[in-house]
Structure formats: structure tokens, C-alpha cells
């Protein structure tokens, strides 16, 4: 049994970046306010002092420009970590991400791979209102050529970046603003994250709760409460949203015969829609109840706290949905 360490999600992310910078000279971090300000959410605080401005580059507010430059730098041999402060500004460089990063390899007949890593913080923050509360993982996961991963745990916050940088193709990493201050214990020697696999976070036999991102801890909490009522839920962290690790959740559903899909993104055409379709295609005859989804309410996220909370699935919602499926 290895040693456990209590750490915040923010510290875990920072540890991951620091390790990457130490590991490979070609790695550099570029983004708005990543240097002198210390990162919009203080994730990269003090890294400028440690690594210098060649490795920690503050960039102007020009998302198309610096994301495109990151793609160009990766084409020419560097290993950039490009930070888009939040996914809310992620539409500005969308052309660069879709038409260049995701497309060049196929369009050039396999000649040009794009090993860029783009980090974006994502999801509902704390009363940031409609323009700063987006959950756009599905938008990016729609695009072939991208690898899209979601950091749902502290372990992955620290272990995912390394594997992402080793990947020869563009990787988009979604981190969650609202989890930054959350503390958890992780194993000190926990290794790097396999970003081609989903992860069973809790084993169970009665139902599979399939989720990612903020949903992971919520689902684990719900599973804990359900176990007190005699319901044994399995919790799956999808972790990689494209390409989906289908085997993992199909195996789980084949065992539990029931599935509840949970995420914060708007319910129509989200990741759960895809997961649900794959369950129908591959595990239909294993189902003992209809697949159910809990997604974000389809509204621009409002400012007041009670309405903000009401717009995404909460632990109680997950708990109630499971009970309804198992005890109709």
C-alpha cells in the first residue's frame, strides 16, 4: 500500500504541468495570464519564476492566433500545452481546432500529425452566469481527429497531461473550475493516466452510472447513499470522450443490465446520447430497463445560485433516478 497525500484539484493539475515541463524541454505552456498573473485560476502560479518566460508564455487575447500558433509549433517539432482560459472562449479558436488540428493528418494523407495539447477549464463555476458556465465537451467530442478527455478526479488531474503530451495527435483536456478547491487523497506514486480507457471508479452489480467530469464525484456520493438502501451501483468515469471506450461501459451494462447516464452538458445531443446509442447497438439484449439520462437543463445557465444548481444534475437527482429505475 503506497502512501496517500491530501491535495486539491488545482495542485494536482499544477503538479502535472510541472512534471511535464521538467520531463521534456520541448514542452512549454502558453495561454492568457498563465505567467505573471499566475493563471486565471492560479493553476500555473509560480511556474514562470521556476521555468522562465520561454517556457511559460503569456499571450495576448487572441485565441485563434495563439491556438493556431500552438498547432504550428507542434507541426514543427515542439510540444506546446496551450491553455484556453475557459471553454467559454473556446469557440474563437474553433476554426483552428477543427480545420487545422483535427484535419491536417487525414487531409495530408497521413503526412502531418499535430501533437498539440489544449487545456480548457469548463463547466459551471460559481454563479458566473450564462456566458461563463458552458459545458461544451460534446461540441469537441463531435470532431474526428481530436482526442477529447475529461478530468474527473484528482488522480487524473495529475496523471493525464503526461500521456496527452505523448500522444501524436491533438488532445483537448477539459478541467473543471468548480472542482479546483476540492481536496482529495491520492496515491503519491499513482502513475500516468491511460487516456484510451474509461475507468470503473466503483464496482457494483445493480446499475451502471456512466458519467464524466464533475459527474464522477457526484455519482460516487450518490452510490454511497444508495448502498445504504441496499442498492449496489457501479460508477464509470468515461474519462476519454473521443474516441469513447465502448468496451468498458458495454461490459458494465452487460453485468448490471441497467444504465443511468449523467452529465452537465445540455441534454440533447450530448455525450450521453452517444453512449445510449452505443448501448442500444451493442447491449440491447442485456437491458432489463430502459436507459435513462440525466443531463443539463436546456437553458442558458442563470446567475442565482438556486437556479444554477437546478440546471445541472445533483447528487439527489442521481439517487432518485436510480431508485426509480430499480424500484418503479
Amino acid at each position: 500500500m503506497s502512501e496517500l497525500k491530501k491535495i486539491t484539484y488545482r495542485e494536482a493539475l499544477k503538479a502535472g504541468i510541472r512534471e511535464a515541463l521538467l520531463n521534456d524541454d520541448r514542452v512549454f505552456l502558453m495561454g492568457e495570464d498563465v505567467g505573471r498573473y499566475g493563471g486565471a485560476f492560479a493553476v500555473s502560479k509560480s511556474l514562470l519564476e521556476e521555468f522562465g518566460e520561454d517556457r511559460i508564455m503569456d499571450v495576448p487575447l487572441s485565441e485563434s492566433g495563439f491556438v493556431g500558433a500552438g498547432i504550428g509549433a507542434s507541426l514543427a517539432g515542439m510540444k506546446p500545452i496551450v491553455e484556453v482560459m475557459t471553454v467559454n472562449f473556446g469557440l474563437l479558436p474553433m476554426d483552428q481546432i477543427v480545420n487545422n488540428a483535427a484535419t491536417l493528418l487525414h487531409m495530408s494523407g497521413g503526412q502531418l500529425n499535430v501533437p498539440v495539447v489544449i487545456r480548457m477549464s469548463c463547466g459551471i463555476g460559481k454563479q458566473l452566469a450564462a456566458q461563463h458556465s458552458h459545458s461544451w465537451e460534446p461540441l469537441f467530442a463531435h470532431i474526428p481527429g481530436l482526442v477529447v478527455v475529461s478530468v474527473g478526479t484528482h488522480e487524473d488531474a495529475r496523471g493525464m497531461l503526461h500521456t496527452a503530451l505523448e500522444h501524436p495527435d491533438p488532445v483537448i483536456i477539459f478541467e473543471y473550475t468548480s472542482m479546483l478547491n476540492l481536496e482529495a487523497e491520492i496515491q503519491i506514486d499513482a502513475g500516468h493516466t491511460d487516456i484510451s480507457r474509461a475507468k470503473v471508479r466503483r464496482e457494483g452489480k445493480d446499475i451502471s452510472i456512466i458519467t464524466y467530469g464533475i459527474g464522477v464525484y457526484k455519482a460516487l456520493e450518490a452510490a454511497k447513499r444508495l448502498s445504504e438502501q441496499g442498492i449496489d451501483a457501479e460508477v464509470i468515469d468515461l474519462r476519454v470522450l473521443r474516441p469513447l471506450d465502448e468496451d468498458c461501459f458495454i461490459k458494465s451494462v452487460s453485468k448490471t443490465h441497467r444504465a443511468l447516464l449523467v452529465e452537465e452538458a445540455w441534454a440533447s445531443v450530448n455525450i450521453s446520447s452517444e453512449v445510449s446509442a452505443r448501448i442500444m447497438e451493442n447491449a440491447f439484449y442485456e437491458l432489463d430497463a430502459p436507459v435513462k439520462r440525466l443531463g443539463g437543463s436546456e437553458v442558458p445557465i442563470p446567475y442565482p445560485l438556486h437556479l444554477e444548481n437546478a440546471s445541472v444534475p445533483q447528487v439527489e437527482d442521481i439517487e432518485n433516478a436510480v431508485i426509480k429505475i430499480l424500484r418503479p
Partner: protein
Amino acid sequence: MKNKNNLDPEKAEKLLFQMLLMRKFEEKSAELYTKEKIRGFLHLYIGEEAVATGIIQALKPEDYILATYREHAHALARGVDAGVIMAEMYGKQEGCSRGRGGSMHLFDKEKNFFGGNAIVSGHLPLATGMALASKKLKRDNITVCFFGEGAAAEGEFHEALNLASLWKVPVLFVCENNLYAMGTALRYTHAVQEIEKKGPAYGIESKAVDGMDLLKLMEAANKAVEQVRSSGEPYLLVCNTYRFRAHSMFDAELYRDKTEVEKWKKRDPIPKFRKYLLKENLISEAKVQELEKRLNTEIQKAVDLAEAGTWEAKEELTRFVYSENPVS
């Protein structure tokens, strides 16, 4: 034995042949398009040949080139084989992008030819990023990025120039100003129509040059390339030119006057250069005729190669969405 324009008979012949090849190759392409051998969009460079020729002759093989969707001539000037380009335009797997790109997406990594970029201005940030990588990796190659004056109205143009200057990276921006963004004249798209005035706003040295005169272009290009290479800083060269043909094959040219086209045709860079060489005794009539003959053989060889080319198997469709040897 070089003359005052630094031309010797060998180089003179090479350049003349290159421009004749560009012209003839595209005329053949137009014909093949009407016969449905080439499909999709086909944008011809006819009239602008001096620009690609003049700029690319100044480069070293290790320099990076990024061009637009009107890039057949650039690929030819870079030494990509005419047959391989023609095969690409046919969609055959013998093409430089396995036939997956077509006319607008010619790529040849070995020749450091990075497309064939068809989102107007989308490749400017890439160029800045590639130059950034050269700087970080302490390579002495430079990046040359061709684009039209239409691109200069895009935000990415301004972002890329600002970043390039801010970061002091070795990139030569070459604006091929042919006066029309598709069918909209410069005067309707730019408040300041001298594109070269936009460089200094970002602290970038800029110059305009007659894009119909190969000698003037070579002089300007040699100077600009030399400056970028020695200073490691960006440079903007605006080449004022004109396309004799329509924007693409399917264009009724409602937006410009025939007399205007005829006026520009009088400045055709190819006869002008030929006349000059003959006058300077850098080439003989007999040699010119021999070149014309070689030209026809070359074009025929290109068409034969494309005709004899093969289609990529349908089973290969999904190859190269992701790299084939991902690091585990």
C-alpha cells in the same frame, strides 16, 4: 557568369521553364476540369506566376512554406513533381496527399511544403507557430506564408502578425494582392487599401512590389528572406498582381470589366521575362523552343501519371484520422 540581376543562363532557363510549366499545367488543369477529370474547386494562378517563382527561388530547402488554395504553382516551384500534383487533383493515391486533398490541399512534408490551406487566413497563425518552433529549437530556417489580400481582412491575419512581431519569430508573410477577394474588389473590403501599411502597425517591416515583374520580385524576395533569416523577425512583402482567369472555374466574372483584364494581360510576367532573357542573351530562341517542347512532354507525363493512377481502397477511408503508431 551572372548579370546585374544575379542571373546566369542556367538559373534563367530554370526560372523561365518553371513559369511556363505553371502556366501550361494550369491551362491543362482547366481543360481537364471541363472534362470532369478534376472536380471540386479549381482555383487558377494564371497571371500571378512571377510571385511564387520569385519568392520560392530565394528559399532554402529547409524553409517552411505555407500557401493557400491557389497553390499549384507554389508546389511546382517547390519541386513537387507535376505528375504527383496532377494525380492529387485527379484524387488518385499517387497524389502528394494520397488523393485526399485535391487541388486545394497539396502537401509534401519532405519538401517542407505545408499546404494547400483553404480556410482563408487560417494558416497564418500556423506559420507564426512554426516560426516560433524554429526559434525555440534554434533552427536557422524561416517560414514563408502566402496569402491573398482577402485574408488581410480576417482577424487571424492581425492576430498572427501581432504574435509574430511580439515573439520576434522568423516568418515572411507574402501577400499576393490580386485585387479581388473572390469577386469583391479591394476597395470594397479594406479601409486602407495599401496592405503594406498594415505591417508597421504591428512593428513589422513591410514593402510592396510589382508582382508582375519577376526581376523586381526576385530582388525584393532575396532582400526580405535575407532580412528575416538574419534578424529572426517577421517581414511583410506585398506583391501586387492580378489573376487573368476567373476566381474558380465556375465564375461568370460579373464583378470586373474585360478591359481591365486585357490591360493587365499586357503585363503578363512570362513574355516579359522571356523578352528580357533574349535581350540579355541569357537564353536563345532555339533554347526557348526546346523548353516549349520539353514542357509538352512534361505535361503529358503528368497527365499520364494521373490517368494511370489508382484509387485508394475504400477500406482505407478511416486511416489517418488518428496517427497509426500512438504512444501507449
